[in-house]
């Protein structure tokens, strides 16, 4: 201290190091880290002791063990002889399936209801408001239960199931609809679809460039529809229609054939879509209302019709407001899909719980949960951030 003072003649008295914010910050962080390390050491010590007492070995070797339980809903081959690791993969795929289909449905329903909430039709506006206010204010788990025990399990038995159009049936075992059975040469159809998408992309790009250069428009939408539907059909015809349809048949006790969507999946998927749609509707409404009124007046002044103006002027600007909160709703839906365990749908969480009961590997299971859910969340937010950056205002 004295040396420093001597080095700066006439300088004011330096404050004591005790009051230096930098020193205080470093000391505080050191103390914090030390306390944390102590806690961690205590926890690890106790955990090792507890695990030793209950004879549980640590590590992920258990994943190669035989699972011994069966899973009813699965996307890949699995039997009770498969490993725990494969069971977890089945669960993860189920989680992704519910989340992805729920996100698509919730988005469509949510946008529809959000637009209805702004409709100039009083009755539709009020109906949309009632929907939003009901479903925003009750727990998602309750909606899942209600659909599962209150609606879907009260459907009639397979022998008197409801007959729906296109040869599909609805009964207490779920929803049955015809399944396409692809024969030899079906790759032509897939190739047609792929080519259709690729061509449509290039047509859209070319049409855009031409419109920029010459001002002439090209019917991109109609061409794309024609390409995407026409090319697979052409492929189908070229391969000689290798397609048979497997219709579900009503048996005495159960349905045979067709594709079956089980009530567990249906109630989870419908409940998550209905619940999340209420939140998305509010986000959409706020987004559209967030576009200044001057924009509406401006497109009218340019001579655009309301529908064109909505599509070309209002919606692109509203999307900028909508996308960030929409992302968090998607993440919420994905996380809420873990409620599947309450109705016995084998998602990641339910299967992890079963494995925990069999093996007692609590820490490993929690680590697996953490890693998988965090990576799903991270992937979703990365995609939405990319989409957001694409839609964001480009300031020059």
């Amino acid at each position, binding site marked *: 201290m004295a040396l420093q003072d001597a080095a700066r003649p006439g300088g004011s008295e330096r404050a004591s190091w005790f009051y230096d914010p930098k020193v205080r*910050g470093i000391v*505080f*962080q050191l103390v*914090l*880290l030390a306390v*944390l390390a102590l806690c961690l050491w205590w*926890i690890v010590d*106790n*955990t090792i*002791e*507890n*695990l030793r*007492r209950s004879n549980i070995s640590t590590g992920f070797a258990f994943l190669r063990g035989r699972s011994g339980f069966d899973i009813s809903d699965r996307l890949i081959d699995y039997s009770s002889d498969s490993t725990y690791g494969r069971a977890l993969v089945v669960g993860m795929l189920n989680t992704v399936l519910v989340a992805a289909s729920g996100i698509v449905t919730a988005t469509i329903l949510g946008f529809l209801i959000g637009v209805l909430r702004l409709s*100039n*039709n*009083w*009755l*539709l506006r009020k*109906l949309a408001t009632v929907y939003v*206010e*009901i479903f*925003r*204010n*009750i*727990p*998602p*788990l*309750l909606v899942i*239960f*209600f659909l599962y*025990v*209150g609606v879907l*399990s*009260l459907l009639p038995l397979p022998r008197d199931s409801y007959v729906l159009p296109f040869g599909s049936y609805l009964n207490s075992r779920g929803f049955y609809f015809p399944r396409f059975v692809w024969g030899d040469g079906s790759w032509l159809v897939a190739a047609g679809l792929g080519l259709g998408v690729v061509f449509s992309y290039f047509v859209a790009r070319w049409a855009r460039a031409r419109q920029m250069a010459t001002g002439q428009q090209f019917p991109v939408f109609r061409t794309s529809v024609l390409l995407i539907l026409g090319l697979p059909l052409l492929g189908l015809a070229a391969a000689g229609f290798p397609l048979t349809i497997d219709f579900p048949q009503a048996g005495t006790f159960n349905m045979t054939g067709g594709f079956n969507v089980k009530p567990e999946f249906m109630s989870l998927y419908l409940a998550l879509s209905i619940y999340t749609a209420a939140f998305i509707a509010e986000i959409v409404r706020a987004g559209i209302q967030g576009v200044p009124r001057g924009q509406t007046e401006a497109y009218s002044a340019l001579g655009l019709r309301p529908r064109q103006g909505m599509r070309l002027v209002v919606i692109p600007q509203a999307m900028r407001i909508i996308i960030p909160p929409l992302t968090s709703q998607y993440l919420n839906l994905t*996380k*809420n899909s*873990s*409620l599947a*365990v*309450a109705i016995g749908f084998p998602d990641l*969480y339910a299967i992890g*719980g079963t494995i*925990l009961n069999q093996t007692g590997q*609590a*820490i490993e299971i*929690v680590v697996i*949960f*953490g890693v998988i*859910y*965090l990576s799903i*969340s*991270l992937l979703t937010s990365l995609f939405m951030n990319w989409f957001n950056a694409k839609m964001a205002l480009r300031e020059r």
Partner: protein
Amino acid sequence: MQEHDISWVRTEMALAQSAPRSEVGPAAWLRQNLFSTPVNAALTVLALLFVAWLLPQVLNWALFSAVWTGADRTACLNAEQGGPLPSGWSGACWAFVGAKFGQFMVGRYPVDERWRIYLTAVLFVVLLAPLLIPRAPFKRLNAILFFAVFPFVAFWLLLGGFLGLSYVETPLWGGLLVTLVISYVGIVTSLPLGVLLALGRRSKMPAVKLLSVVFIETVRGVPLVVVLFMASFMLPLFVPPGMSFDKLLRALIGVALFSSAYMAEVIRGGLQAIPKGQYEGADSLGLGYWQKMGLIVMPQALKLVIPGIVNTFIGMFKDTSLVLIISMFDLLGIVKQNLADSNWATPQTAKSGLIFAAVVFWIFCFGMSRYSQYMERRLDTGYRR
């Protein structure tokens, strides 16, 4: 010679004309709001048909055909199912809700001790109501009583075991009691924890910042059921052998950690919206860090994010229903458990019980959201033209 003067001044006001028939009155309202275009008219008719199809069914099921009293399941069965009601009958079985009402509210809490819950509930309402009414006096005292004194009194009253009250173990608790206890604890602990985490995330100290970010992002990245799962399976591993945790306490720890992470993000949003000048102003006044935050920044930031905070509260209130998954019986859990009671097993029981639970949840959540809108309008001091 008379001069023609074309100027003319009206000496009396023209009589006010009534607005055109097409602009006012019910008919005009109908035309403007329901039948403005052909498409609109068609949509209106469709919506009307939908309402006319749905509403009578709902009212009939919930009110007119409902069974209000009864001793057991036979009261809610129709002739085909072997009951007294006419065949084809379908209606709500409120008798089930009536018979189980006590359980739905407090679980298996001993009947002789239930006065303790009622006393706690009365205290809760008496302390909360004046806190919510802006004009009520003694706000500071009231807040201290509600947030600092009430938890201890409620702990003593509900759990007991000392000062003359018998011990009621938490596995006996259930129903709305558990829902409210978990949400109250979640709300009271998540706000201060959330403030600390939000400040930590914006701190200039790298270690503090890193720890806050890791905690917040990890907890927000996984579902609440995983956090509850951790709390219920891993907490017992973390403590020395022989020491055991109460199940309710584990759920409370899980919910508090989970909601504080969400609260931190909401409050961080508010902190980011405070202009830099406010921080610099506080610095130039010579305020220390905690004074600066407590007196200048936080009051403005919290005011900005009231809607977000209340949304988090509502989310937390709804999320308490997930403790069902670690086999605790909150309101939804106990309704679900009672659906398995064979004395009341009818096709209508599940719907009636779940709709009752939905209505209770709805009243609480809707009340909270309306109150937050009211507060938002009241605190909206300026900025609005």
